[in-house]
């Protein structure tokens, strides 16, 4: 992908005022959907996304159940008002692909054998999108899964890095996604140090790729800190003393 105009100005500021190694502001609100078994609202820059988990629960239809482990269903869906141009409510091919890669980003962390014949449903609803919505969705879903008490080997944290004005930058926003040189979303299990989502859209040479991957992982680790503090705050509030 070749850029048409410069996206970083002379003082090193990007289109939204950030410098190249700065993440957008991230806020996570745990337990926002009262009916769900686990949920989280994430605000990642201008992204506003809700992830809700129902599970383990009965599989419908019953014949889809697996005898030795649970079935994971994942749906990434955007509300019509979430994008610059209104989006039709019907599922698009993009949403179908993203639903799949998100499921495959989260499944490695889940201990599926603990729930034979059951289903874990993960629903990601994008209320407002601004570049990096799949990473924000994965991040929120991981928090929702922990909130639901599902057995997990590790959390999953996600962040994208990319190339803008021939520089490797962390956390691509919407403008940079549409007009920049490359966009690489990554999901990462922070304790086990394993990558569970990796996509690339754009052109990177070998060195650029290595730097981009390292930057994305650095972003994932920063995002992980916010996931952990939001969970600790909801569950342990003022009783943080136990960890000292």
């Amino acid at each position, binding site marked *: 992908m070749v850029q048409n105009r410069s996206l970083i100005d002379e003082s090193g500021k990007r289109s939204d005022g950030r410098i190249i190694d700065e993440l957008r502001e991230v806020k996570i609100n745990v337990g926002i959907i009262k009916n769900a078994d686990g949920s989280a609202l994430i605000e990642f820059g201008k992204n506003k996304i809700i992830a809700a988990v129902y599970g383990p629960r009965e599989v419908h239809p019953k014949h889809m159940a697996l005898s030795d482990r649970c079935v994971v269903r994942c749906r990434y869906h955007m509300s019509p008002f979430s994008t610059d141009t209104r989006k039709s409510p019907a599922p698009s091919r993009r949403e179908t692909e993203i639903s799949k890669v998100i499921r495959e980003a989260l499944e490695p962390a889940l201990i599926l054998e603990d729930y034979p014949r059951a289903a874990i449903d993960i629903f990601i609803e994008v209320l407002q999108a601004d570049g990096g919505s799949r990473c924000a969705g994965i991040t929120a879903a991981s928090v929702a899964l*922990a909130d639901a008490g599902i*057995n997990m080997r*590790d*959390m999953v944290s996600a962040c994208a890095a990319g190339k803008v004005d021939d520089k490797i930058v962390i956390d691509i926003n919407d403008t940079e996604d549409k007009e920049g040189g490359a966009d690489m979303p990554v999901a990462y299990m922070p*304790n086990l140090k394993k990558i569970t989502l990796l996509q690339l859209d754009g052109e990177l040479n070998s060195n650029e790729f290595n730097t981009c991957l390292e930057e994305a992982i650095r972003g994932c680790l920063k995002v992980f800190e916010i996931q*952990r503090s939001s*969970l600790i705050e909801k569950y*342990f509030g003022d*009783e943080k003393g136990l960890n000292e």
Partner: protein
Amino acid sequence: MQEVKRKYVIPGDIVAEGNLKPLVNVYRHGNLIVATRIGITESNKDGAKVIPLSGIYFPRANDIVIGKILDHSSLSWSVDINSCFNAHLPAQDIFGRDFSPAHDDMGSQLLKGDVIVARIAIFDRTRDPILTIQDKDLGKIPTGELIKISPTRVPRLIGKRGSMIQTIEQASSTRITIGQNGIIVVSGKDKEGINLAINAIHIVEVEAHTSNLTQRIKQLLNVPESEIENDDTKRNHEINDTEINDDKVISNKIDKEMGMMNSNGTK
């Protein structure tokens, strides 16, 4: 008694290092014991585990549960036990082995919407839980106020050898039936007593992981000063609940042998 170290953990956090035995809600990863859920750790010479603070009810054989009748087939009632699987109560459990849909009317015993307290007689990885109401104190619950709490708080609500729930029952003059699945029925003669009990139950649910909870509950219920023991000495026991959890651990061991309990080792 060995000092018990506790930590707050989220999935992926390290619970302990070394040769400790992984118990529940943890798994072994090399030299580390890692948490699989949000909760409070507990490690001593017997092993390492996490006491979970969230999660739906996952059935276990021998648990006492409170359920509601959804429907019935010709041979059993299907029962919602607030879990990922519906349970089944065989008609034979009530009518006996000679049960026949031709001359025994299931509707005469239990109707859609009825609430029952039952024991999970059978549950394994291959089928839905099977209930029985044949033991003492089991069966249909005709009256009372029904409330739901997170199943992870039930051990705290019961307390060491039933102490917490008995304190609440006595102070509010109510009878409280608790299901391991988080469903509770409170019955009593006067509304005030029932409301007091329900209030106390909700406070235990929200503050289950905090210290001095017993003391605060007793104060709420106006239990006389002489009966409020020095809670500081009881601190370890309170949050520990090892006796309750020991039963859980034993049944977990059996369940693990049957191949159905939580992760307990690397694959």
